């Protein structure tokens, strides 16, 4: 893949099971392409520093900060945004456990916790806390978020 700086390059992005051809500049972040070109505004623009996790998406199942990724880097990855997780158990668990206050951090947290529950179906509290370090909640509702994750982990662990 060689992207010519003088014009935009067409790349294919695989998001939530669909393939999209998008025109990108070399310096376009994955976050901007998802939001501005694909209309997937679930990933939020916030610190743009990799600190807060509001822009989290899954790349091949692993949480990454889309503000620190260039769109061109993601062309051979399978991406998932919050829009692809509609109706998932983790989303319902956030609702059931009141793990949402202002909601701005919620998409990032849900994707991160979905990846956690997928990769570690029997995650200990220690592992849950370590994973939650990737995201910040300015309303500080961490306890409810942790309880939401615990409820999903317990459910899948028993299955």
């Amino acid at each position, binding site marked *: 893949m060689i*992207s010519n*700086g003088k014009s935009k390059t067409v790349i294919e992005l695989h998001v939530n099971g669909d393939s999209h051809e998008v025109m990108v500049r070399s310096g376009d*972040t994955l976050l901007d392409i998802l939001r501005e070109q694909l209309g997937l505004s679930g990933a939020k623009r916030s610190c743009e520093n*990799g600190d807060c996790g509001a822009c989290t998406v899954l790349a091949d199942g692993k949480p990454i900060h889309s*503000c620190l990724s*260039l769109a061109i880097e993601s062309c051979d990855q399978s991406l998932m945004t919050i829009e692809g997780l509609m109706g998932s158990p983790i989303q319902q668990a956030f609702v059931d456990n009141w793990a949402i206050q202002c909601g701005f951090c919620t998409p990032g947290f849900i994707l991160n916790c979905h990846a956690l529950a997928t990769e570690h179906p029997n995650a200990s509290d220690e592992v849950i806390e370590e994973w939650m*370090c990737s995201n910040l909640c300015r309303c500080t509702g961490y306890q409810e978020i942790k309880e939401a994750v615990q409820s999903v982990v317990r459910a899948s662990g028993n299955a």
Partner: protein
Amino acid sequence: MGTVLSYRLASLEETIAQLSREDCQIMAGGTDLMVQHKSPMGAPARFDKPVMFIDHLKELKQIDQVNQDLHIGACCTYTEILEHPLIPNIFKVAIKQIAAPAIRNRGTLGGNICNASPAGDTLPLLYIFNAQIRLRSSKGERVVGIQDFILGPRRVDRLREEILTEIILPEMLADRIVFEKVANRRADAIAKISFAGSMRLEGGRVGEARFAFGAVGPTIVRSLDIEQKLKGEAFPLDPKVVDGVVAYFDRIITPIDDHRSTAAYRKTVALRLLRHFLETM
């Protein structure tokens, strides 16, 4: 203008060939590079050179043991290193203190080294392990010690056509290895001070002691002279010997005041970490 070319080539061979023709900004994870080059509010990131992505290259993602040495591909992410059975436990202790899992899914060991931040979290351990850096270009290969590779803040001894391909970790025999990171919070924090130390005892005496400080000078601080002098000292060390070592580092470490900490705090804590390391086993 900030728009430039970018390359994401299929093999290491092609990547090296292109680097021999053109000076590029190599990106191996980019978790710090993107912070340095970002633009506000949706404008594209600005680079003054073409961007060469290398962290997808399979050739740079191997971890192998060769004789007593561990060879770690430069573009292994922290997550991949953390999950690998051959990696020494103390590196896992250190990596768990780097950023947070989502950053560790992108950040790479080679990137951390070439970024050459005085506060680079993996660097003090790489120094005390006497890590070797393998570089490759179209002209050939060379291997250089990490202490010679890192020249200063953001400056490394890498020619523009070279790629850091792997980090070689010689086996280290030690009775105790420690890594300490002092930062504002547990996750996503840049070190105010970091410290790595190892000690091997032989019949009640110091067989070998190695220690290095991060974030208290332009590069990692280590003194082979002092380490040599400690060899053969009875352990536990005589308080006068400990005082002497601490006084020596009081003179040679030169921390700065910045938004993360003060020079005075950094020096005080660094010397206490050293004293604690020398006094305990």
